[in-house]
């Protein structure tokens, strides 16, 4: 059975005018978000996106945009408590 998470939340955006269809995003995406259509990459399954930022970093043409972050509740709570950006701070053994 497939794991599914909340719908319509991902901040992923594609600037298709910059996309050259190199296919790097299809290569690095761990959740099959993109498909190649008419020589350009298209966000096909946005709800699969976990905002890891792999596609954004590895796009040589800066066509993609996302607000990257960790999908980790205890990291977010810690961020709230300490007033810092939530980071997956595994060094105290709370996540990952």
């Amino acid at each position, binding site marked *: *059975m*497939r*794991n*599914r*998470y*909340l*719908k319509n*939340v*991902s*901040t992923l955006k594609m600037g298709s005018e910059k996309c050259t269809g190199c296919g*790097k995003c*299809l*290569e*690095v*995406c*761990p*959740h*099959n978000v993109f498909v190649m259509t008419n020589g350009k990459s298209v966000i096909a399954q946005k709800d*699969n*996106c*976990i*905002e*890891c*930022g*792999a596609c954004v*970093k*590895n796009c*040589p043409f800066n066509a993609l945009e996302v*607000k*990257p*972050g*960790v*999908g*980790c*509740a*205890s*990291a*977010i*709570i810690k961020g709230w408590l300490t007033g810092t950006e*939530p*980071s*997956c701070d*595994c*060094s*105290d*053994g*709370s*996540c*990952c």
Partner: protein
Amino acid sequence: MLDISMGREITINQTSSELTFRDILGSWKVRWGINRMNYKVEPGLYRIGNPDKSSPVFVSANYKMSFDSLRKELSGFDAYIMVIDTKGINVWCAAGKGTFGTTEIINRIAITQLDKVVSHRNLILPQLGAPGVIGHEVLKYSGFRVIYGPVRAKDIRDFMNAGMKATSEMRRVKFSAYDRLVLTPVELVNTIRPSLMIFGVLFLLNLIGIGPFGFVDFYGYLGALIVGCVLTPVLLPWIPGRAFAWKGWLLGLIWALIVNMFNGWPYAPQYSLLKALGYLLILPSLSAYLAMNFTGASTFTSFSGVLKEMKTAIPAIIISIVLGVILILVNSFI
């Protein structure tokens, strides 16, 4: 003129694709949270088999479990493993933090003098390192081309046999019931400290005459922990709904109903309605909170999604637990 271009010595450590009993015991221990934050290998270059100048180079994190799961798939290969310094954190988490990253790779290539060890200019990275690595910048500054391998080390043989091509199946992260199960011990271990504090408080309340808190409270609480930390993660995709907190709450509610039914509700109640309601408010919320924390261990949650779920879940959990505690305390005074 002074010649300072003296060659530094190139160090390559021998390793093997065989995992020893100690390696397996070590993995088992870190799964239970023992020595988990200090399970490291020395960064540097390692050889497996008898590699030469044309042998492939795999890049790994210096979390020992990452390194072990790679090398155990390389039996029969002649290859190099370049272990980069991720502070003992696994590939995915280190990539998220940026320690499995562009700069570290470029630096490690220079430190290990990889350009003198191999004649080709390809690096095979685990795909899950991609959130931390700008492939085209590694190429620009080191001359090495980044090739993203499969997500799972066990697909490496097929990946290499296919001429360093990953199928879309190899590119996808999965999260099977077994994958989820192995992550649950550490979730349980993390609850030990807060649990001991809660038991301490209940014990003090018993001492000063508010209570008594006893066996039912104990197994009710323990059950809610197991529901939140183990049962919900393992049954995740089969539980209706999408938010983790909701899934945990739902199973927790079933558990709270079972606890009350064990104690005779509704026909021959062993305790008052206040206490029964108290359990219904507290136990599912506890499971919900613990299940919500499993978002960090899961492979398919996003920051925006977790934030959205927390904005509803956290206030609901707090209100529910506070109300439940009030009911149970009031019950103790009657």
